[in-house]
């Protein structure tokens, strides 16, 4: 699942203080609504959100929430989240202690004379071509949020681009301590 937030473009690049919360929840109906509702009514901002079944558990899901820690103290966000009965565990990952990845998919329609340029961009970004026809190419990039930002900005030069990004997922850096 990806973030429900509308795509607002690369100029909305974050300057706010982000924090990553990796939240283990019971895999029950309405849990995502409980979390989204809590954030809405307490005035906490979600920057991005990713949900998937938790590793090795049919009963749990993992929700990775990138929160805007300027909208509320992180302690408040974690404290209130912890009170949700379906929330089992919360890991707070400070960005410098985390490995973060996002997935970017983009379909670019190009004239023939632009195709060489496009191929160079794709290669430079280490993106993969996953679909192609006579007029368009679809590329995929699984990379850091910054690398995804960079590719997105570069692709702005093309006239017709449809671009989707997922919420980010994260794990602690090996050998580093998380809080």
């Amino acid at each position, binding site marked *: 699942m990806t973030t429900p937030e509308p795509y607002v473009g690369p100029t909305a690049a974050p300057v706010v203080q982000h924090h990553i919360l990796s939240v283990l929840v019971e895999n029950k109906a309405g849990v995502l609504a409980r979390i989204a509702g809590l954030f809405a009514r307490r005035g906490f901002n979600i920057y991005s959100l990713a949900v998937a079944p938790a590793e090795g558990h049919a009963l749990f899901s993992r929700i990775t929430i990138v929160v805007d820690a300027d909208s509320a103290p992180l302690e408040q966000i974690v404290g209130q989240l912890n009170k949700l*009965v379906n929330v089992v565990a919360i890991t707070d990952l400070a960005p410098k202690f985390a490995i973060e990845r996002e997935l970017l998919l983009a379909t670019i329609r190009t004239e023939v004379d632009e195709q060489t340029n496009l191929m160079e961009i794709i290669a430079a970004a280490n993106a993969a071509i996953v679909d192609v026809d006579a007029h368009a190419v679809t590329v995929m990039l699984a990379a850091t949020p910054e690398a995804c930002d960079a590719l997105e900005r570069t692709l702005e030069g093309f006239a017709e681009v449809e671009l989707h990004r997922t919420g980010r997922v994260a794990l602690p850096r090996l050998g580093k301590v998380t809080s």
Partner: protein
Amino acid sequence: MKLTGAQALIKSLEESGVDTIFGLPGGAILPVYDPLLDSSIRHILVRHEQGAGHMAEGYAMATGRPGVALVTSGPGATNIVTPIANAHMDSTPLVVITGQVPTSAIGTDAFQECDITGITMGITKHNFLVQSASELPRAIAAAFHIATTGRPGPVLVDVPKDVSQSMMDWWWPSSISELDLPGYQPTVDINQADIDAAVALIEAAERPVLYVGGGTLKSRASQQLIAFAERSNIPVVTTLMARGAFPDSHPQHLGMPGMHGFYTAVMAMQRSDLLISLGARFDDRVTGKVDGFAPEAKIIHVDIDRAEFNKVRRVDVSIQANVKDALIALDASTSTVKNLDAWWKTLRSWQADYPLTYDPPTSDGPLRPQLVIESIARASAPGTIVTSGVGQHQMWAAQHWQYEEPGTWINSGGAGTMGFGVPAAIGAKVGRPDRTVWTIDGDGCFQMTAQELVTARAERIPIKVAILNNAYLGMVRQWQEMFYDERYSEVYLSPDLPDYVKWAEAMGCVGLRATNPQEMKDVIEEANSINDVPVVIDFRTDSSEKVFPMVPSGATNDEIMVHPSQRGKRS
């Protein structure tokens, strides 16, 4: 043993120790009402589902046991949303069971369908939509466990009609681990390092104050509070939600803090160098403008809910624990306490200069509302339970009645729900039939939920209702007088419409009226002599009377306005 879901639901309530349910049947909950006929549980048939919710709250606040309400789907469920929100704000343990349309009809906009788990997500501690009859015992057991442990609160269980109609093999969870709540850990061990840090602050403080909140009552910590306060000689304030947690007659009690708090209680916090918060949450009605609140005070914050720490005010030491355990630990670790004579000298001079006061009564009416409350208090037995609605009468009842023990003051604090008083009194009387229960109500509040007096009469629940009838929505009138240039907008109600005496009589109650101090004395005596039916008294009070002291909205507590007769004094 094969049971229907409905039978399993009732049996689960019996297993949970329920003796009383407040409710009103309807289509989706119909199957559950049939096995109720065979149960030992008493059902109180209300006249409106909001009444059921507030009765359950009154029951819970008077007894410390969870209140239970049972209503149908759709409008039955939405009518109880206000009490659920109220219980959520005041951390009152409730279990609310709602009927739901059959599972096959959910999502089809069926008759009397509404998404009550969605609606109440933000105002319950948790809620359940039960998917099968075999899940019912666990859902009910979990609901009681969640409602009553940690920080208490309301839990809603939504039961589709086909779930209550289908068959299941009876079972009952034998331990908490069978409740399947992997994310719910309400209890924590006290961290001794936090206690030690708190003790160091207490031993160093020169102007400490024990800031006692509702959590002190919830954890039944009054005895521990009295013991710790007496040993440490620290002054005590009790918030609106904690009235009765520390005896009003105790010489160390400074009274209630907050927007309409006692001058000395407000100023003690304001000048304090250490606030020891016990199950309180730095509510805006207590702090006034937060930036100017108790500017020199360090904060020790005791709360079972760690999300309360640093929510409003940065704390210096937080102790996650229930208040009782924390007080025991603090008392055991505190050895030396500073001599607080200088602090007490200041406090005593404030008390001498700014006691709670009001204009002297006249002999020919209209009545002073404060005098009515003091007169009822004097004429009523010790341990009498008082409930109220919300507004001026609530503040006067909190100020002018002497609360000596826990569970004797029952009101709507956080939510400020008008109409709370009458149904809460009914619930309190059901839970504590040995006690006299008075409602101090306003005429505006009374009109919101008065129909539950029909319930009270029919169920033989003899509560006593004092309407302080000033013919206005009094608190709004007070604000319009003081802050809106006396431009009175939509606050006049009329003293005679409705006729409260006739209305009371139509509902099977005794209706009385008093317009001057002599009549007041007589009707209070008469009301206290009636113990078989509810009594309603229409006290005609002075509509220009205002609640003082008052901290204006948005002001710091330093800007407290005392009674006009005390202005210009210096301490």
